[in-house]
């Protein structure tokens, strides 16, 4: 697997070929098509929380796809759908060219050997009654290794995340700081040797100084272990720093998708613009005078008809109420698309085709 030396840390590293690779470098590692998940509301017949509603995207091998959105947008549900921890109501997943969960494709169990998830650090992300090294060794143990072998693997991976296995291995989660616990979470996800890691708000619960350490660690691990990341966060600055491409979600749907610099420098969708403008400025001389939009994100149980953002959108028109704007056609990795009538010349919106 040795390749010619390339500048360390460059994101233009040619992808290293994993022995488990099936589809080749051009095949996206993950394709999601029209994923849908509605949770029925107890007691209110017919009503459901439309957590994820027709989401499609791809993840290229070796990239970091960032997913941003506020509460209720469905990003956490989406994270679980990608691993079939929650079974989708509709839609399909294709991992390295093989359909997930169908005969002839890849079984969910096999998928879970190649895709893992890191949760937001909370007291509930590690078993409080297990020493940390056992929590990390659990995955390999389940996947067939003997206990001694699994323990050794756990030692190695703990070292990789910067924790001295002798010092930290026997400890219990309550004896670790937030940053240390999160490293253990990362170690646990990596112990089974996945190719893709889904990170669900991995740094949101950490102090800023520790957040920086963990982000550096994630970047280094990605290079060393040739990983692909799906990075979910509500923090735009973090997403900008770590992602190659970004997907913006609102109330269960994708509103914008594209390369990170294009999303941040030239956002197309009014929601993305509002989100970017809501970031506190670090300069006291240039404070935000007016909030970019008003109101709260609406309830995912009864989303507005047509375009779900129309209730808060300064450009909403009658067409937005009747028709849900489709996400423009995705043409490739550098495609920058948005689901907005203003982007679609034939939509009937007064500002269509002019932005």
């Amino acid at each position, binding site marked *: 697997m040795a390749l010619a030396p390339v500048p360390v840390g460059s994101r233009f590293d040619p992808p290293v070929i994993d022995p488990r690779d099936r589809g080749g470098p051009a095949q996206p590692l993950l394709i999601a098509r029209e994923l849908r998940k509605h949770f029925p509301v107890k007691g209110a017949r017919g009503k459901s929380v439309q957590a994820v509603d027709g989401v499609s995207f791809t993840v290229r091998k070796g990239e970091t796809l960032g997913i941003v959105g506020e509460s209720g947008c469905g990003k956490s549900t989406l994270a*679980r759908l990608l691993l079939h921890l929650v079974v989708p109501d509709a839609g399909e997943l294709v991992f390295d060219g093989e359909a997930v969960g169908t005969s002839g494709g890849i079984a969910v*169990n096999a998928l879970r050997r190649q895709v893992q998830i890191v949760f937001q650090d909370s007291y*509930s*992300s590690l078993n409080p*009654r297990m020493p940390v090294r056992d929590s990390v060794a659990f995955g390999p143990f*389940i*996947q067939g290794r003997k206990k001694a072998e699994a323990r050794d693997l756990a030692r190695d991976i703990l070292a990789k995340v*910067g924790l001295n296995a002798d010092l930290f291995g026997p400890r219990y989660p309550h004896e670790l700081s937030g940053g240390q616990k999160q490293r253990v979470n990362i170690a646990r996800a990596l112990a089974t040797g996945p190719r893709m890691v889904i990170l669900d708000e991995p740094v949101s619960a950490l102090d800023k100084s520790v957040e920086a350490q963990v982000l550096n660690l994630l970047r*280094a691990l990605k290079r060393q272990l040739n990983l692909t990341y799906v990075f979910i966060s509500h923090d735009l600055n973090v997403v900008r720093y770590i992602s190659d491409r970004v997907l913006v979600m609102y109330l269960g749907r994708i509103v914008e998708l594209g390369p990170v610099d294009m999303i941040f420098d030239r956002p197309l969708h009014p929601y993305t613009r509002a989100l970017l403008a809501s970031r506190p400025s670090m300069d006291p001389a240039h404070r935000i005078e007016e909030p970019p939009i008003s109101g709260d994100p609406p309830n995912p149980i009864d989303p507005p008809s047509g375009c779900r953002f129309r209730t808060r959108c300064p450009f909403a028109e009658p067409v937005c109420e009747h028709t849900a704007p489709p996400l423009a056609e995705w043409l490739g990795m550098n495609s920058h698309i948005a689901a907005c009538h203003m982007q679609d010349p034939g939509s009937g919106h007064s500002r269509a085709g002019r932005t």
Partner: protein
Amino acid sequence: MSDIALDKPLETFDEQAAPATLVRGYWQSVFNRLRHDPVTLFFAAIVLLIVLAAIFAPLVAPFDPYKDSVIARLKPIGWRDHLLGTDELGRDMLSRLIYGGRVSLLMGVVPVLIASIVGGLLGVVGGFAGGRVNTAIMRAMDVFYAFPSVLLAVAVAGAMGGGIGNGMLALTLVFIPPMCRVTETATTQVRALDYIEAARATGAGTITIIRYHVLGNVLGPVFVYASSLVSVSILLASGLSFLGLGVRPPTADWGLMLSTLRQSIYVVPFVCALPGAAIFVTSISFNLVSDGLRAAMDVRM
């Protein structure tokens, strides 16, 4: 070797990496907390005393509990060698109390133990499976919950004809629903936590997850609740014997002793009250120890 060494202790500040408290492990810290709790320790000592006396009854009891004597009937405390007097058949009270402890403890602990296993199993299955299985199990338990425990115990023991075995069976049935409920609640709570999802994400099956992740976290509250049930069980068992539905004479049992000594209460009141005192002290000691355990195990770390 990683090119990150962020948690390597800076050379001269190794205490950064050392654990803050030297106590590790959950049970170790529980034990530590208990050590500083004088009330719980005191009552735990009493429980220990009662248990030891019951186990070593033949060595500890001064007289044969079944040896009756016509002349030595209903003698007060301290009469000749009888430290606590004699009962209505002339048998030594102290010896009968000690031997009675055996029965009480047996009928206190065994039903709770069996109920914990059976109820616990049902609770874990229900809590983990959720949905209809859970509903089926919990509603079945609710049927038994509809009866007050004393009534249910009396009804079952009575229907089966009394005796120590049937008494224990009745108590076991009474305790299965609450054990099931406590276990189900604890299991449902644990089930929703992230580390269970993480375990599922590695491909672990249900039994494996229950074995490694659920049981260890559920046993704590279950154990505490079970220990509080022992005190209730002792009371109920004594009640059953009092009503004649438990142990049969001449076996020494505190409830039975209360019943037979009832008529003699105006003759030697203190002696007749002794079995009641024994029930009270044993039951409350178990109760307070269970409370202390709960407090020691409850602290969020």
